[in-house]
Every structure is written in structure tokens, then in C-alpha cells.
């Protein structure tokens, strides 16, 4: 019975069976574990019916819509991927949105500066590297604040939110930075057999992050730290170095999101990630992670990010006033947390929080 688990689930997320659990309960839990994907399916069905009823069109069978939703989901998904790691460890990273903006501006400047000497391709490569590396700097500071100086993650990263925002606007001169590099524009808007390049890049990156979380010691220690820091420390895990790596990783995810944003719009903007700040936390929570730490998966976060993207795009598509997006996403977040609480009660396990 103990065959090696498939990459789709970490040991901690095999549907847990309490001592007294009947089969029905474990089925319920299995459904609860997949709730984000069920949400997604239900949402798509609603918009499909809505579109057919109101103007006889199709929502999801239209490849343009699917591509748009996928492109729309790239940036929030990349931020949410980093955020998933941080939230599982019991922390939160509020600075990701503006780290993304910072990376967008820096990569735009870098590509403009490098293209004349290095050419189109190497200019873009330099822009990617410098953008992600510069994004790592606020990550290092976040990590040092949280791990060495014991600053609560909420406050430390809130401070970095302001710093990254200011630096990004200063570097951008208060405006957007247009990029003149046709190769960069091609990455941002080109397609491979109909699939946008940036979606492919994001998908590959997310698969790597899934591997990191579910199959490596780093990921395993991340779950342990989120559940019981004391236990992790006593087991010999170096908490300080883990937290430092963790915040650098989440900042690098935001950095990649920023560079892809610049590619898509052919310009870097400091406010690129502003609306995504809370969307990425929402995606993680909708995806089944607990803000108390110790649980969550990349698989769930992907669904969470898609749920938000489908709501936002779908409401525009069926021509509802955009303000309904806020309401819908808010309601979905609350429902997700309620389901999470109910699931904990079902599982019968003790919950110390």
C-alpha cells in the first residue's frame, strides 16, 4: 500500500483518514481537497450557460477566451506560487506585488541598455537575469528581517512593500518604461502552436516549483516549519537559512512575473503588480492552503489562480460591471475558508493554531 506517491500529492496531503473515519468522510475530504478545481469547473459552467443564454455565444469553447484567461492568469499565478511556499511556512509576503513592479522596470531598463551592444537575444537574456536577480534583493532583506531579526513576516514584508514600490517608481521616473527590442516583444506576445510563450514559460516554472515543494527536503522542511517550528528546530533543521532561502524564492517568483509582464506589454511599469498583491494571497487560500501554515499545494494554487482569472475575465465577457469582480472574488475567498474549517472538523485531527 505504500507505493511511492505520485508527484501530484505530498504525503501530508494524501486524504487524511482519522481513526474513526468512515469511507464517506474520506470521500468528502477528497472532494474538499479538490474544491478549487470543482469551483473552477462550476464557474466555467456558469459563464458558459450565461453566455449562451444572453447572446448565444460560447465562453470556454472559444480558443481566444481560453488563451486570454491563460495569459491573464500568468502573473498572479507566478506570485501565488512564491506565496504558496511562504504561507505554508506560516508566513506571508506582502511585498510581492511591488517586487514584481520593480523587476518589470529593471528588466525594461536593462534590455534597453544591453540591446545595442549585445544584440536582441542576449539583451533579453540579460534583462531576464538582471530582473530576477534584482528582485532577489528585497527577498534577501525580507528573509533577513524575518529570520535573524525576528520581525513578524506581515510587518517586515509590509515595510518592503513600501520600499520596493518607491524604488520601482524612482527607477521608472514615475512613468512606464517602454522597451525597444523586437525579440522581447515576440516572447511576450508570440505563440507556439497557439499557446502563448509566456504561458509555456510560466507552466514550466510552476512544474519546477511543484517538484521543489513536494519532492525535496526544502519542501518537506517548509511543511514542518509551518506546522511546528519548535519541532523542526529540534530535528536539526536550520530555520534561519531556510527562511532566508524561502523569501528569496518568493521574490524571485515575483521577479519572473515582472519580467514576463514587461514582455507582454513591451514596457516596464512600477505598478504592474499592484492589483495582484492580494489576488496572489487569495489564489493560495482558494487553492486550499491554511493561513496558519502547514498545508497547501502548488496544484491547488494553480486552480486558485485560474478561479480568479476566470471570474475576472468571465464577468467582463458577459458584460457585467467590473466592480462585481471584487465582490465575486471576495465571496469565493470566504467560502474557501469556510470549507477549509469544515474540513478540519471532519478530519477529526487536533488542530493547534
Amino acid at each position: 500500500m505504500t507505493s511511492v506517491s505520485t508527484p501530484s500529492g505530498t504525503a501530508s496531503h494524501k486524504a487524511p483518514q482519522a481513526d474513526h473515519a468512515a469511507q464517506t468522510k474520506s470521500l468528502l475530504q477528497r472532494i474538499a481537497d479538490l474544491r478549487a478545481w470543482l469551483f473552477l469547473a462550476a464557474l466555467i459552467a456558469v459563464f458558459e450557460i450565461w453566455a449562451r443564454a444572453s447572446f448565444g455565444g460560447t465562453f470556454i469553447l472559444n480558443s481566444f477566451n481560453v488563451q486570454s484567461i491563460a495569459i491573464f492568469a500568468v502573473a498572479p499565478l507566478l506570485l501565488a506560487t512564491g506565496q504558496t511556499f511562504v504561507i505554508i511556512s506560516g508566513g506571508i509576503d506582502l511585498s510581492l506585488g511591488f517586487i514584481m513592479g520593480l523587476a518589470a522596470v529593471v528588466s525594461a531598463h536593462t534590455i534597453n541598455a544591453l540591446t545595442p551592444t549585445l544584440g536582441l537575444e542576449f539583451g533579453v537574456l540579460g534583462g531576464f537575469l538582471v530582473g530576477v536577480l534584482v528582485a532577489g534583493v528585497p527577498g534577501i532583506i525580507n528573509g533577513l528581517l524575518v529570520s535573524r531579526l525576528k520581525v513578524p513576516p506581515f510587518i517586515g514584508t509590509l515595510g518592503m512593500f513600501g520600499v520596493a514600490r518607491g524604488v520601482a517608481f524612482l527607477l521608472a521616473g514615475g512613468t512606464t518604461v517602454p522597451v525597444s527590442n523586437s525579440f522581447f516583444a515576440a516572447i511576450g506576445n508570440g505563440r507556439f502552436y497557439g499557446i502563448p510563450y509566456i504561458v509555456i514559460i510560466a507552466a514550466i516554472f510552476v512544474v519546477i516549483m511543484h517538484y521543489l515543494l513536494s519532492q525535496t527536503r526544502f519542501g518537506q522542511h517548509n511543511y514542518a516549519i509551518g506546522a511546528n517550528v519548535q519541532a523542526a528546530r529540534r530535528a536539526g533543521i536550520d530555520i534561519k537559512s531556510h527562511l532566508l532561502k524561502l523569501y528569496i524564492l518568493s521574490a524571485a517568483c515575483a521577479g519572473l512575473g515582472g519580467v514576463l509582464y514587461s514582455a507582454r506589454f513591451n514596457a516596464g511599469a512600477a505598478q504592474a503588480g499592484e492589483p495582484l498583491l492580494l489576488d496572489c494571497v487569495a489564489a493560495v487560500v482558494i487553492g486550499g492552503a491554511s493561513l496558519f501554515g502547514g498545508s497547501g499545494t502548488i496544484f491547488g494554487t494553480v486552480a486558485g489562480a485560474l478561479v480568479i482569472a476566470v471570474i475576472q475575465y468571465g464577468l467582463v465577457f458577459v458584460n457585467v460591471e467590473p466592480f462585481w469582480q471584487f465582490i465575486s472574488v471576495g465571496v469565493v475567498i470566504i467560502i474557501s475558508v469556510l470549507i477549509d474549517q469544515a474540513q478540519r472538523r471532519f478530519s477529526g485531527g487536533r488542530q493547534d493554531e
Partner: protein
Amino acid sequence: MNNSVQPLLEVSNLSKHFGAIRALDDFSMRINPGEVVALAGDNGAGKTTLIKTISGVFRPTAGEIKLKGQPVDFQTPQEARDKGIETIYQDLALADNLTIGANIFLGREPMKKAFGFLPVLDRKKMADAARDTMALLDFHVSRLEAPVSNFSGGQRQAVAIGRAVYWDAQILIMDEPTAALGVPEQRKVIQLIHQLKAQGRGIIFISHNLQDIFAVSDRIIVLRRGVTAGERKISETTHDEVVKLMVGG
């Protein structure tokens, strides 16, 4: 005391001072293989200082610790653990969201290669080790994929002990192992301690519960204000005498 066998652990004239405070002063004890030594004493008597000094959390101000005859000087708890001294805390140092196997291997997870090149966690090895170790402690668990939060307090304590056993700890320091448990579970832990004893391990057992102490220990050392107030064989003492030693009557 039986002086003919090599003691597992020998502590001689150990002192630990914090500034002017003598938390532990000139303390000596020995533990033979298969022996359970109880430490008793009021709060602040120096029990915690003693176990933290033995397990490498504190460095002694003076004195010597010998492990199987070899002097040791631990810089970190990890060094003590590597040498086979494992501490089991009353508040169950487990990650509740992980499986028994993952808890046993926490911090030293086994890896294997998937597709011949990609390093991944060896969950099968962890699950197998969990099953074997728990069976060794006479806990037969089938749900190796379940997080430990799904198990009862006694089973969780068994997991903590199982981790020490798997890593072949020779000395187990158990700090109030029954404090957080119900009565039936306390009995189970007492049974476990008997089993560890039968396997030839040495156990330092700290408890406020004299009944538990008398149920499992061979000897009892009573501490008072950092010094040994008395050492007795369990077979030759009574509850009353131990209480008198503790309060200094």
C-alpha cells in the same frame, strides 16, 4: 550499584552556573545499559539544566561527561544526537501535518533518484521504516500515509520515541513523557519504557508523578537547588522518603 559493567553514561562533578546562580553544582550520576534512572525534584531544582547540559544545549561550567567511557564535549544538540543521546520532550516535538515516516526522518530525509537523475524524497523508505520501528515498539499502524495529527496522544508519544529508536539512540532523556496523556495512554508509555529498557538502552526519566517513577525506574536521584539531595534504589525506598528528599524535610 553495579560497577562491573561499563556505564553508558557517566557524569562526574558537573556544574552549570549562570552568573552567580548555581543551577547545577557538583552533580554526578551514571547510567548502565538497560537502566532507567528517574530524576525528581521541585521546580527549579536543576532537572532541566541537567538534561540540557547532557543533551548539548548548555555547555557545562565544570565537570565531565563520559559516553561509554569516552569523554565527550558537545557544542550543539545535534552533536549529542549524533552520538546517540536523544531527548523526548513533553510537548511532543512532532510536525503534526507530516506522516510518521516523515517525522522519524525530519531533518535527515532519505532521497532517491527518479528517472535515474532527479532527486526525490524516498517516501517508501520512510513508510517502511515507520512501520518497522512502530512494530518494534509494539504499535501496529497501518495508516502510514496519514498525518500524525490523526493519531492519539499515546501513539504520538510512541512516534517521538520511535524516532529516537530508529536513529539508534542509546540514551533517551524523557522529559515528562506522560504529562500530556490520559491514564490508559500513560500506561502504554510506561510499557514502552520497559521495552526500551529490555533493548539495553539507558533512560533518564523525568516526572512529577511518583507512581510512574516507581513503576518504571531502577534508581531515583532527587535534586534540590542544584545539588543531589539523595539517590535511592527504587526497591529500597518509599514515596514518603522521596517526597521528604524533594522538600528537604
